[in-house]
């Protein structure tokens, strides 16, 4: 590499790294061709420097902007996944504890078959939600399948309990129906986006 090429290589540092990776070698070839064609002297160097001073800043700004967009999408993706994991854990725990409390109350009043069934499926749905939340939090490969299973089971269980055996509290039933719907929407529309952002 000649001294002039070394100076031009220093000038190229003004461009963003991704641009240099893509076009640095080509630009150096063009510079070499210009020198071969007889372009030299102060005027040539002034033109080279002016060209770098004029073209590098917009490319830098463009590179920063796309980097910033990638970073914020990445953060958004993580925030979405963590929020869904925390909500799944909290609501799963709440539904499990609530189903057990309902069971205890039903036991005090004398168990019947319907109450036992409601308590059992309530506990299963709550534990499934809890497991789905933990799987999402630890980024398990099974998390999407587990979350889908938990959401469908929970939704079915709480709709059935709400319609056929209205023994659970209204709050627990609304939460048991509402959250699985949100989880299903996240799995359908948000997860792919979140996965792309986090990947």
């Amino acid at each position, binding site marked *: 590499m000649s001294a002039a090429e070394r100076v031009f290589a220093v000038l190229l540092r003004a461009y963003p790294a991704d*641009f240099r990776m893509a076009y640095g070698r080509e630009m150096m*070839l063009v510079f070499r061709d210009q020198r071969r064609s007889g372009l030299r002297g102060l005027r040539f160097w002034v033109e080279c420097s002016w060209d770098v001073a*004029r073209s*590098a800043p917009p490319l830098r700004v463009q590179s920063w902007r796309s980097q910033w967009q990638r970073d914020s999408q990445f953060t958004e993706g993580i925030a979405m996944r963590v929020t869904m994991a925390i909500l799944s854990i909290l609501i799963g725990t709440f539904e499990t504890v609530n189903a057990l409390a309902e069971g205890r109350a039903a036991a005090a009043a004398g168990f019947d078959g319907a109450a036992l069934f409601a308590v059992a499926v309530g506990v299963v749905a709550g534990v499934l939600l809890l497991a789905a939340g933990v799987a999402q939090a630890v980024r398990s490969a099974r998390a999407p399948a587990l979350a889908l299973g938990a959401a469908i089971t929970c939704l079915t269980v709480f709709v059935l309990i709400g319609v056929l055996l209205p023994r659970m509290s209204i709050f627990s039933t609304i939460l048991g129906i509402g959250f699985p719907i949100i989880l299903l929407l996240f799995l359908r529309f948000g997860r792919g986006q979140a996965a792309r952002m986090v990947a």
Partner: protein
Amino acid sequence: MPRPAGGPRSPESYLPLTPATFQILMALVDGERHGYAIMTEVTERSEHTLRLGAGTLYGSLKRLLEEGLVDEGAERTDPEMGDERRRYYRITKFGLSVAKAEARRLEAVVRVARQKKLIGVRPA
């Protein structure tokens, strides 16, 4: 390279092109060219009124590639320029329609300038 998402844009929506962009597209109308060949053609065709630096050239090519107006051809050597492998660029069908739209726009500008006798009048 595919055109950016968000629906297809009409060639007219790219107008007016910067002189450098239009000259680069015009240099590619006749066929594939590598960077230095584009640069020399632009200098010669503009009668040395427009000299593209390497940064301006490749900055414009990057944007043209992203917008789907130009495509990358195969990388090969130019027998006249030594044995280094060079990346060749070619205009896309869409790039050609943008160049044609810009040429029509400039033609209209020239027509008006002629009507107003700004050009085409011999000096007394």
